[in-house]
């Protein structure tokens, strides 16, 4: 068990709660809209961006955001089409971004495997500043407001994009907003959870909630709850074991998802059908 100074404990706890909250709300959209490949690419673009920040010796947050946003701008039109070949997109973007990240890390001043560089890979509570917590709080507020204010449009969009458009909703603007918010959630959570793992924090809590509930309102309540709980217990787990916090959070959330798939009431009786 590691003991932490109180201020660091508060920052880390708040960071965990807010990262869990914003990432899992983004996940509710990403999972339902089949945007997993975009979320995946944006996470790793943010990772490459953060590594670039280290290289040019600026705060990794803005560069992570820049890379994630650029990827989103590149991929959003692709996502809006039906014929997206996700395997190809993932194959190209993922390997490209990881390669870029490693090149940036390798070129970074100081030792390549320095503590700072490794934090970008798997996250650290020591990397989270008060500013990061502030940004995460603002983002969480914006996301909650987005969900509350546009609840009926979100339901329409997540039920069926074409029908939502057909009833007069500007689906393109909503898709852009969702992609953009996801990019921010990824970038802001990256220092805590790490560039290689932040994607799991987007997908796992939301997928867990989708296993249990038929009512979208409950999913909107439980996905963030599961996300926050995974982050907090991951945090405690990492204090106990001295594992990196990102890895601990992802292990917890992956276990929760695995168990929930096994016991999901939605999957009973329908086991013959496959809906990937």
């Amino acid at each position, binding site marked *: 068990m590691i003991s932490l100074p109180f201020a660091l404990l508060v920052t880390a706890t708040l960071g965990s709660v807010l990262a869990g909250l914003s990432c899992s709300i983004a996940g509710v959209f990403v999972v*339902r809209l089949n945007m997993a490949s975009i979320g995946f690419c944006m996470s790793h673009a943010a990772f490459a961006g953060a590594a670039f920040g280290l290289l040019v010796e600026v705060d990794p947050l803005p560069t992570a955001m820049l890379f994630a946003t650029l990827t989103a701008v590149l991929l959003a039109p692709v996502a809006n*089409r039906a014929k997206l070949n996700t395997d190809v997109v993932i194959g190209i973007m993922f390997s490209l971004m990881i390669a870029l990240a490693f090149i940036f890390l390798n070129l970074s001043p100081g030792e390549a495997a320095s503590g700072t560089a490794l934090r970008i890979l798997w996250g650290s509570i020591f990397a989270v500043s008060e500013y990061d917590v502030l940004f995460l709080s603002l983002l969480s507020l914006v996301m909650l407001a987005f969900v509350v*204010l*546009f*609840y*009926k*449009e979100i*339901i*329409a969009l*997540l*039920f*069926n994009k*074409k*029908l*939502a*458009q*057909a*009833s*007069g*909703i*500007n689906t393109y603007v909503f898709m852009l907003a969702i992609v953009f918010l996801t990019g921010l959630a990824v970038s802001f959570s990256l220092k805590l959870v790490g560039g290689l793992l932040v994607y799991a924090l987007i997908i796992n809590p939301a997928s867990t909630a*989708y296993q249990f*509930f*038929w*009512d*979208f309102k409950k*999913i909107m309540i439980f996905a963030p709850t599961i996300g926050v709980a995974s982050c907090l217990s991951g945090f405690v787990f990492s204090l106990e074991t001295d594992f990196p916090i990102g890895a601990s959070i992802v292990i917890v959330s992956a276990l929760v998802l695995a168990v929930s798939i096994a016991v999901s009431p*939605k999957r009973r009786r*329908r086991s013959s*059908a496959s*809906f990937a």
Partner: protein
Amino acid sequence: MNGAQDAILLRGLSAVYEGESVPAIRDIDMSVASGDFICVVGPNGAGKTTLLEVINGILPHTSGEGTALGLSISENGDRIRKRIGYVIQNFEIDPLSPFLCRNVVMSGRAGMIGLLRFPAKHDWDVVNRALSLVGMESYASRPVGKLSGGEFQKILIARAIAQEPEVYLLDEPFSNLDIKARGDVDRLICELNRGGSTILMVSHDVGSIPLSCTRMILMDRGRIVAEGPRNEMLQTGEISDLLRCRGSEP
């Protein structure tokens, strides 16, 4: 081009899908007067679905021009779509779909209620009425993922009704329905038409043309090949020839 009393007016309209060279619909001329009930029939792949999506502007047309409710379809997408109800050709329901039937039906009103407004009691009344019109009022709190194909189809129809549109675009509204449900939906569509709504329905099945339908349009390979009053068209044999000989292909 004067679309004042025409619900839908198309002149020389063609649409080519991205990456394709052959237009999916070409040189479509069509006028649908307000209050009309028109059925478009044709074999699979004739371009019926494409036609509906071009009319409500989901799919951009590549040449020609068109108006819906007096507004140009290339410029007024969302404004037109708020006033046109669309029943999409049946798609697979995802059994994990996390929405209750009443939320799905309400989502039909999401566009017309407008941004930053919340559904009021009146909106829920309309939703409940739409659900009972299709005989699904007891399903309001059931998840859509658990419905059968026919029940889901009725929810999609209720969703369009809840929008209270002036024009309905119905894409194969009888697919997945058993004989009784077909009768119910048939009566319902005729009633909507009697209430003043304009209906443009497409179907690959000549046997399913409701009695209230006044005019039929026959489509094949993206073109209109014949049109006329319902009864005349059904007698010509042209329709059944086209549908039958195509239908027997593997």
